[in-house]
């Protein structure tokens, strides 16, 4: 459990938009991720806030490996 708790906390960001998107995602999707997806999500959380926001808001091209996660983030 503690690993998921750490991930939940790391969804606290410097930008409100990301707090909102990530907290919804965590509520709805986190438990359903495969181990591989979870690993990618952890890597995604290490990306910079403005970059993460630009991907979610469809302003910048998303690196292929994050395609699935960003699509899910856009939908929540």
């Amino acid at each position, binding site marked *: *459990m*503690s690993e998921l*708790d*750490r991930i*939940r*906390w*790391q969804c*606290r*960001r*410097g*930008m*409100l*938009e*990301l*707090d*909102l*998107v990530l*907290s919804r995602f965590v509520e709805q999707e986190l438990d359903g991720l495969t181990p591989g997806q979870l690993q990618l999500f952890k890597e995604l959380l290490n990306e*910079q*806030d*403005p970059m993460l926001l630009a991907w*979610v*808001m*469809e*302003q910048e091209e998303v690196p292929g490996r994050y395609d699935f996660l960003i699509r899910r983030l*856009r939908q929540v």
Partner: protein
Amino acid sequence: MAITTRKFDAVVVGAGGSGLRAALQLAEANLQVAVLSKVFPTRSHTVAAQGGVSASLGNEEPDNWHWHMYDTVKGSDYLGDQDAIEFMCRKASEAVIELEHYGMPFDRLDNGKIYQRPFGGHTSNYGERAVKRACAAADRTGHAMLHTLYQRNVRANTQFFVEWMALDLIRNQAGDVLGVVAMEMETGEVMLLQSKATLLATGGAGRIYAASTNAFINTGDGLGMAARAGIPLEDMEFWQFHPTGVAGAGVLITEGVRGEGGFLLNKNGERFMERYAPTVKDLASRDVVSRAMATEIKEGRGAGKDADYILLKLDHLGADVIDKRLPGIREIAIKFANVDPAKDPIPVVPTCHYQMGGIPTNMHGQVLAGHNGGATVKGLYAAGECACVSVHGANRLGTNSLLDLLVFGKASGEQVVKDLASEALSHQDLPKDAADRPLARLARLDSAKSGEDVFEVGAEMRRTMQLHCGVFRFPDSLAEGVRKMDEVSQRAGQLFFKDKSKVFNTARVEALELENLVEVAMSTMVSAHARQESRGAHDRSDFPNRDDAQWMKHTFWYKDGNRLEYRPVQLKPLTVESFEPKARVY
């Protein structure tokens, strides 16, 4: 229970712009510095600052710090202290150039100098015409600033405690601050961080409002710690609001939407701005629009089931115009308001953005012990949005927030270095009960088998603040707000959560954060209720005018007894003539 104690020369709480700038000053003086942060430093809320940082570099056209100072004093509605404002504006160019030398990627002119753009309220020759004074790194100025300062700190061997939360200040009988009690989130372990100097840089507390642009981390932890330690909070009635944040979310909808022809409707579908500003209507200034929106809601003409928001209509512009002229707005509205503005109006409310008040300091970042005289708390410093110097007074000038954290982050760091060198500060023995208070708080939370739900009490606080102490304030409503905040405060003493685990327990952290927010909310409500005038961001229906004779003074709120005291505004600058109060018209 034995608690681990670690010793440092200085402890900085918060790793946003001001914390990092202060820490850099300390680390480069070869002091042992610990910086605590709830989140990774570059995820501090400074990252959300887009507009830029002001400095009268004069790279594009003539400018000087006197004009910047005038704009700041006027913007503050004459509540800012003119000595601190002079200090900040004089230091601005140096602060920006220093950052440039650290590698900050400012936008540049063809000649290689830093590019500057115009910004609301920035003028040349004392209000004569707009001037280009804002320096930016695209629309990511705050982000670039954090990165630059973080890298520099790493190089200077600043020690970071990431995902740590400070709980309380350690103060001895004499009133000196000797460090902080802090908790490591990963383990839940509580530790004493003993220091010769403690610097609070915890940012603003905009999360006291239901409608807020602030990130979730902005919970006023430094203000809560200061209040519990008997230190007053200054000018807490002054909060900057933006007229159009998405209702229920807080995400800003740019004013450009109204510029392109969007307008506001009440629940009857009436374009009400025609009544408040017949000529310019929806393009009236921020405060006029916010006040009109608040009045419509207060009088029962808000939309939605709780009649608590206003509708921003732009579907008549057509999808093509919206996409072309207002890029990103559709995505924001769809994601955060759940409406497609090409079809339906966006629910919006005036939304809290910035905290002008805070922990009272002088211009060297030393925290004032009280409202009388200049006595300071030995060992305690504060800088940035959590502090009140006061350079923003009743209303902050755009781009002065990033400048504030650079100038006063550095100044407070310099003061600490000086105080340590003169041996005015040293490690003192910690009182035996140093950790008792925070440990008792934690023990109560951890052992509670029932009590008040953290989310519900937080929601009640945010609703109360929004409804009773929002952008436009009504006397009956403020009085009711004080009563309600009393209740909220009582309930906040009984918080309860089910999950008692120690490891990254977000519920536990949120309970601790809420205790801090409630101190901030209480100070705001009580201070606003008492101030019988309208000045800057404090706008009262029953006292529509500024009253310099009675109220040109700073509010000091003390947690003990929920008491208010006042301190005169410093009208005398350091070297120039004072700017005498005038009506604030643009």
